[in-house]
């Protein structure tokens, strides 16, 4: 187990390097730079700035300097938020994004699986039909449409929930963003769970369990769920990627001080270090999540050995 985890973490290093290099090149290739303004700066000042940020050096040298700093955990200074380093920005934004992302993934995992199982057990009933049609809406309507609608309805018309702001992480402020973020995932997960549960329910070993005269609820709990949740575990990593990109939009709409907005603002303003920093963070999170997924799968399915 420990051998497996170390091996996977070591493999992750070249993966991350490739992602860093790719991001580095993409940002430099994009026209303009962090200090391009409508009004051109005097050449002396521009030279000074470029020197301060090592921008006057050749590209490969800049890359090596960046990697060298990264290896000691220094993401470098932000180009646009002048008084902050990227580390400080990420540390200030991460709790917000992490709260949002983690609660969304936990809620969508549990609610989605739960709805999926019930829909599968009661298939072709009104419950099944309503869950499936609502989830179809959830899949079709993207979160950047859902978020303003929720905000408008619950925040303005009903006036029961705040439309934006973080407010020190109060639950009332979190309800709407988490809902907007989880709805599409709940929809996808419930549909996947329904399909896989139906497949498991029709399998031979469930017939055996039924021939033992066991209670249906017991059969679902002990025999069905562990087999039918496997595809959902596989989906966990792509779902998290979806939640991360979704959170960028949702944080913007609800005015939350997470790291998502740094990603957008950084990319628009060519804040090279900030974009790279957030990208590395997202990539590492995903790599760790995929690792957790593999461990979970081995735990759930004894046929998978790690």
């Amino acid at each position, binding site marked *: 187990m420990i051998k497996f985890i170390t091996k996977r973490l070591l493999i992750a290093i070249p993966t991350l390097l490739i992602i860093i290099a790719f991001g580095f090149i993409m940002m430099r290739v994009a026209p303009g730079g962090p200090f391009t303004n409508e009004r051109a700066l005097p050449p002396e000042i521009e030279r000074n700035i470029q020197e301060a940020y090592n921008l006057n050096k050749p590209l490969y040298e800049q890359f090596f300097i960046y990697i060298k700093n990264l290896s000691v955990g220094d993401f470098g200074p932000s180009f646009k938020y002048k008084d902050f380093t990227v580390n400080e920005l990420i540390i200030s934004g991460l709790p917000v994004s992490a709260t949002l992302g983690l609660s969304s993934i936990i809620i969508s995992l549990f609610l989605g699986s739960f709805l999926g199982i019930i829909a599968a057990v009661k298939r072709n009933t009104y419950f099944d039909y309503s869950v499936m049609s609502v989830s179809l809406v959830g899949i079709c309507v993207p979160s950047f449409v859902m978020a303003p609608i929720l905000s408008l309805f619950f925040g303005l018309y009903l006036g029961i929930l705040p439309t934006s702001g973080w407010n020190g992480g109060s639950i009332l402020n979190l309800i709407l963003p988490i809902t907007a973020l989880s709805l599409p995932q709940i929809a996808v997960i419930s549909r996947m769970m329904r399909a896989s549960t139906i497949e498991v329910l*029709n*399998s*031979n*070993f469930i*017939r*055996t*369990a*039924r*021939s*033992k*005269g*066991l*209670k249906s609820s*017991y059969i679902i709990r*002990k*025999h069905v769920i*562990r*087999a039918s949740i496997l595809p959902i575990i596989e989906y966990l990593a792509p779902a998290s990627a979806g939640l991360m990109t979704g959170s960028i939009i949702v944080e913007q709409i609800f005015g939350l001080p997470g790291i998502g907005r740094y990603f957008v603002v950084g990319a628009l303003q060519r804040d090279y270090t900030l974009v790279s920093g957030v990208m590395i963070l997202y990539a590492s999170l995903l790599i760790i999540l995929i690792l957790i997924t593999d461990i979970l799968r081995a735990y*759930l*399915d*004894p*046929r998978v050995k790690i």
Partner: protein
Amino acid sequence: MQSTQKNIKNNDLLLEVNNLNVFFNTTDGLIKAVNNINLSINKGECLGVVGESGSGKTQTFFSITGLLSNNGYCKGSAIFKGFDLISSSKKERMKYLGKSIGFIFQDPMTSLTPHMKIGDQLSEISIFHDNLTKKESLKRALEVLDIVKLPKSRNLITSYPHELSGGMKQRIMIAISLMCSPELIIADEPTTALDVTTQSEILNIFNDLKNQLGISIILISHNIGVIAETSDNIIVMKDGSIVENGSTYNVLTNPQDKYTKLLLSCIPPWLDV
């Protein structure tokens, strides 16, 4: 081959099926899979059911035990020890399923839950039906594994199905059906997926169950050779109906129906049946 089961005493009757019909709702309309079947089995007797694929032999016994798929339903009666399995509610039928009636399926490879330890799959049934504790039922599991002649029983308890061979899995299936000391075991093609050596070992276990523990066995198979070895009586099915029934000896030596004759002619002449 003993075949003097003619003098049936009424109190020996274990299961009696009367006018059983099984239907399936399909997109092509209603399909009748089993047509007016009557059969009976006594205590300690082995009944062999032969027929080709799709002759309704499996569905007959699925319908009795409530294992029909969702689009299927049945009419008729199946009296097990004075209790009608078909007209009763699911809840009442479940008291008999697994407890007094054990079921063994065709494909041992996929018939065990892949993510549960063998010990749990064995013990859950007597925890549920006999209110045993986990410890007691694991002890019972070891006894049962001994009956089906599985070696190293203690290791088996903690292993998973994929770690066992096909023959071992089928023995585990038989062990599961034996957990609550049933009076009837329905074995649906128990040897079809196994090689010939394992087949004869499994059939020997069935003979032991019948002769030593006095369990009645319904042996469903398309292989008349398998049936001939173990059963006292034979039913031959075709297209959902019974075309011939009688004692094994009579059916094999003096078949009346054309289809039975055809079935018997399928056995190569150098085999001694």
